[in-house]
């Protein structure tokens, strides 16, 4: 009596359902041990296969936790400590003498680079996506642009770095700095934002467009005031995903940003040289000084947190905004 109530109660909760699944599996395992002769070979194979693929999922997710454990076990002493460059000072002070301070220069640098990249990349890619989804008919032009975006998404990041170096720095003469680095990152943002925006625009029901056109609105007004507004959550998600992606890029920045232990004061020229979190992590980990090794872990922890926050915001934006608009 009590047990059945208990079971019914368990059925209701998620943990209860999980328990049911686990206990079922356990029972079958026991059955496997106790009555092996009754199971046919095919049944045994079935169970073994399922266990094998479950094990594979475990293999897939384990490195993430090992990585988190390593970052936390080494980097946390910087986050909670109270020495120079530890605790609050980690994200609020410049490296200073012998790089004993925090990584403020890198955090500011990454922010500046991402802002430049967003300012350049997002308008271009949103307008491009609007063109292919709203203004072009399916055909060669659309296929070519989509293929271009996909190719751009697959190009290795170091090729962008080399291209930024030879085209932006040497050929256009922009020099190293925030502008060059930001532009290089903008090139990398374009495919992500473009394809997600396009997906979001595809989701907008055509009845909305038709209603707007029937009320006498021009195509232009319909596109920007109705279609794009309805697709906004998807577009925001795409932008955030792209920001999260370029935030962690190192290779395109090595040859394009210069490096700076202080804060940038301009947008071009030597005063615009910026550090970035990934580059800082790389140079710290390659440095033999033990406290810099630790600082690399804590900087990686900061970067990881920034990236994951942007990622979670992207998820949140897509769910929350969709609900609000529909």
């Amino acid at each position: 009596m009590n047990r059945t109530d208990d079971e019914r109660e368990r059925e209701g909760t998620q943990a209860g359902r999980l328990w049911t699944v686990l206990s079922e599996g356990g029972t079958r395992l026991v059955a496997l041990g106790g009555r092996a002769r009754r199971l046919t070979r095919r049944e045994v194979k079935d169970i073994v296969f399922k266990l094998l693929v479950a094990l594979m999922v475990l293999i897939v997710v384990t490195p993430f936790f090992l990585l988190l454990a390593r970052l936390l076990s080494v980097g946390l002493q910087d986050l909670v400590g109270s020495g120079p460059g530890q605790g609050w000072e980690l994200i609020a002070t410049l490296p200073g003498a012998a790089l004993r301070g925090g990584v403020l220069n890198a955090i500011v640098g990454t922010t500046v680079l991402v802002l430049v990249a967003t300012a350049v990349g997002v308008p271009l890619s949103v307008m491009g996506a609007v063109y292919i989804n709203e203004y072009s008919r399916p055909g060669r032009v659309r296929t070519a642009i989509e293929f271009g975006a996909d190719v751009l998404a697959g190009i290795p990041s170091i090729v962008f770095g080399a291209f930024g170096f030879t085209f932006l720095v040497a050929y256009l003469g922009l020099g190293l700095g925030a502008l060059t680095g930001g532009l290089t990152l903008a090139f990398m943002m374009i495919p992500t934002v473009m394809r997600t925006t396009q997906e979001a625009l595809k989701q907008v029901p055509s009845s909305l467009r038709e209603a707007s056109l029937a009320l006498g609105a021009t195509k232009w007004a319909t596109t920007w005031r109705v279609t794009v507004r309805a697709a906004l959550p998807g577009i925001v998600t795409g932008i955030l995903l792209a920001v999260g992606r370029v935030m962690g890029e190192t290779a395109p920045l090595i040859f394009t940003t210069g490096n700076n232990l202080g804060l940038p004061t301009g947008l071009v020229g030597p005063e615009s040289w910026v550090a970035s979190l990934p580059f800082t992590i790389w140079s710290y980990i390659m440095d033999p000084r033990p406290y810099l090794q630790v600082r690399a872990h804590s900087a990686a922890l900061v970067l990881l947190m920034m990236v994951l926050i942007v990622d979670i915001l992207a998820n949140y934006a897509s769910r929350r905004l969709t609900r609000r608009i529909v």
Partner: protein
Amino acid sequence: MVMPTIRETLAAWSRQISERYESLSMRLRRLKDPAHVDLAGRIGLFIPATTAILIIVLILTFLWYESMPILTSDVGGPAIFLEPTWDPNRDLFGIGVFIAGSLVCTGIALGVALPVGIGAAIFLSEFCPSHLRDVLRMIIEMMAAVPSIVYGLWAYTVMVPWIRDSVYPAVSSNPLLAWVPFLQGPTNGYSALAGGLILAIMLLPTVVSVSDDALRSVPRSLREASLALGASESETALKVVLRAALPGVGAAIVLSLGRAVGETMAVLMVTGNSLTIPYSLFDPCYVMTSIITNQLGYAFVFPLWRSALFAVALVLMLMSICFTAIAKVLIWRGTRIGAVV
């Protein structure tokens, strides 16, 4: 003489502004031919739409232009793609060693990531309880978001010592494995194996999520038909669902191949960057992306050296274009087959 108050000044300004704005909008309204706006929009939006193609053309042009000197010079020529010796001081620019290194690392990575990733995708789409699947998918999404430098940091500080202190001693002291030719050699941990493993870890999220999508888009009726014919759940998953999803899974494979070849930072930190072709899993190697990262800064003032590095970048670029094209074709075939079923 009455000084106008601030409020009056503001009011005057706002009147002026609104008048001017009104006249502007009036003028626009007179021009209000919807076709005009539409045409302007069509042209104004076409230019941003071509940015992606423009950038690709620019990249290809610059890489081609930059790598021409080495491809046409006496010391280089197209043969550098096969030559195994890289020594810029002696004018030897063989980039075959980097292509070999990239192939070995990519091979190890795919050898690990594909079976594990596709197996995990089968579990997620076929056998996993839905609430557990949401959690796992979230973790896998997060793994995909982790920057490569963070994976590199972990591989550099954890995996390399692990290979040096645990894996290699275990392999070399095991009489069953010690004689295998590709498991030879003393190692300091920086090896093709380390590069391949960290690449595999970085590829797994992509492989799992793309294959999972492909498997889940297989119609339910196929599964039901197979089960109704008496096949077990695992037989259904392997022989029916996986086979139907094969083009999508193929696209996942090709996409991850492209990412593996192009990955830079994590591999750079753990492969040991030695200018030799790896013959054993424990040998160090040098991949294409690493040589560009390590030497472009120094090489910029030496025309031939720089040009050889851009030839490496050109190879990378052409490879990634090929992989994307193949993946596109596979996805396209996949959707066509899906439509038929």
